[in-house]
């Protein structure tokens, strides 16, 4: 059974009447790393939010199915949804600067998901958090644990966010433009980190990005979204080597550094 299966997902915003997602079908197998690519406004982020349950339901009209291990996340109760959120599906957001609570110690944010979903004692949670922080490469976890977000650099914060999502070993990690706000060298490190974490624990990754180059580094397969629909999908290398869709070709052409790379 696929880990996640999306069938004909449609999302319409009630406030604006805009149909952001117009019938998306996607499947992610356990441990698979899938890139979802498209320009801004293509509906990729809405898709990701819909399947992670972060869209405010009262504001949208959703149809179709999002089957996570066979359960339809669109139709389960909030309570059921919350049991999946964080525990089975972790999310890493675009803005490491703001996606951490500025008034809460980093360590506590990393271990929060354990507090919600497990019966671990405070000490056990702390140990697990320190371990996760070490794994994502945060320096001196004991000290960082006591720090506040503003005392960390951008890259460190994104590592902390990844640690906070990974500490409970979810089955799926949704990464929404995880490297966009970071500079190039840090970008590479974060992508490397995500890749190794995914491999090590067999975590499936859904990478949302506008940048095919980023997707190519991390994901073995890719789906290209355009105006709420998936226009092309397949192995990353295959899509790169022989894009079938005109839009995909434009995207590939737009990858920075590619032209220079090709000479």
């Amino acid at each position, binding site marked *: 059974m696929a880990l996640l299966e999306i069938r004909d997902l449609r999302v319409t915003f009630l406030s604006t009447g805009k149909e952001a997602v117009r019938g998306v079908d996607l499947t992610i197998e356990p441990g698979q790393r899938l890139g979802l690519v498209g320009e801004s406004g293509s509906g990729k982020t809405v898709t990701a939010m819909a399947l992670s349950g972060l869209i405010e339901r009262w504001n949208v009209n959703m149809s179709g199915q999002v089957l996570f291990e066979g359960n339809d996340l669109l139709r389960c109760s*909030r309570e059921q949804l919350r049991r999946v959120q964080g525990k089975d599906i972790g999310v890493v957001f675009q803005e490491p600067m703001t996606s951490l609570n*500025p008034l809460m110690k980093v360590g506590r944010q990393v271990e929060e998901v354990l507090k919600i979903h497990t019966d671990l004692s405070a000490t056990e949670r702390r140990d697990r958090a320190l371990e996760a922080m070490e794994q994502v490469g945060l320096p001196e976890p004991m000290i960082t644990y006591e720090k506040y977000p*503003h005392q960390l650099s951008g890259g460190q914060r994104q590592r902390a966010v990844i640690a906070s*999502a990974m500490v409970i070993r979810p089955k799926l990690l949704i990464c929404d433009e995880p490297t966009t706000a970071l500079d190039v060298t840090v970008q590479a490190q974060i992508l490397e980190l995500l890749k190794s974490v995914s491999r090590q624990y067999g975590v499936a990754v859904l990478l949302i990005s506008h940048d095919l180059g980023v997707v190519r580094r991390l994901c073995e397969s890719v789906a290209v979204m355009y105006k709420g629909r998936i226009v092309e999908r397949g192995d990353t290398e295959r899509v790169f080597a022989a894009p079938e869709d005109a839009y995909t070709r434009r995207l590939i052409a737009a990858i920075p550094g590619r032209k220079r790379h090709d000479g």
Partner: protein
Amino acid sequence: MVVTLLLISLLAFLAFQIVPGDPTAKLLGNDYTPERAQALRHEMGLDRNVFVRYRDWLTGFVTGDMGVSYNYGMGVDRVMEGKGAVTAALSLMAWLMVIAVSIPLGITLARFQGGRLDRVCVAMNQVFMAIPPFFLGILFTYVFGLVLKLFVPGGFISPRESFWGFLGYLVFPALAIAIPKAAMVTKLLRSSIIGQMGQDYVRTAYSRGNSRWSVIRGHVLRNAVLPVVTFLAMTLADIVAGSIIVEQVFALPGLGRLLLASIGNRDYPVVQCIVVIIAFIVVFMNYLADVVTQYIDPRIRLG
């Protein structure tokens, strides 16, 4: 802080030079003649340069000598005896009421934003905020005093007679001051929480499986309370100033009433002392707000 206080006391001192009315007029009464007034002014040292008098006053104040009330002929500290306690008790009670009502209410309204309770309360809030305390005071005297007979209007009980009776009499005056302020704080806290709810870290918190309530409790509240802390501090200072009117309405022998009467009597030593006390409270609450904010927010913590 000290500079601010010095400046305020100097301004108050100078203000008396501008307002019409002469303290000797009241003291001499029917015996007033320009010559006698002049002699009395000389005796009281009022004919000296204002800055010299300010310096003398300041020296006295710093060494604990607050001067002698023109009108009561006794030390300012004796005139104020017990008055400070009334105003302090009234202000603190009103302030605690503000906190006790607005914090839970603000959180609840934000938690159920858009719900029926929220809509009703937000509308009522607008009304309550606009009611001046003196009007509430008169209303309470009618409703709770004369109709429901929950207290005896004008029946102030001195703490010397009965401490609990004293506090009991202060409940409705405090309520009259507290309600508009509580409405303001509620509104501020509610909108602050709602403002925070749109932040990225809140989305992160949701993604971990937090419910709305646990997001508010665990993450948003601490952030949302920051502007409220500053406002609450200013509110206490505001309440102290606002008690002037309410003390009048409920016939409470507090600093506010003394201040009003002393201004009328041109009893400058008393006025000066009360002004400095109120200024001190404002400045001190400002300072306290900074301290609390620093405690809550590590980003502006010193060192």
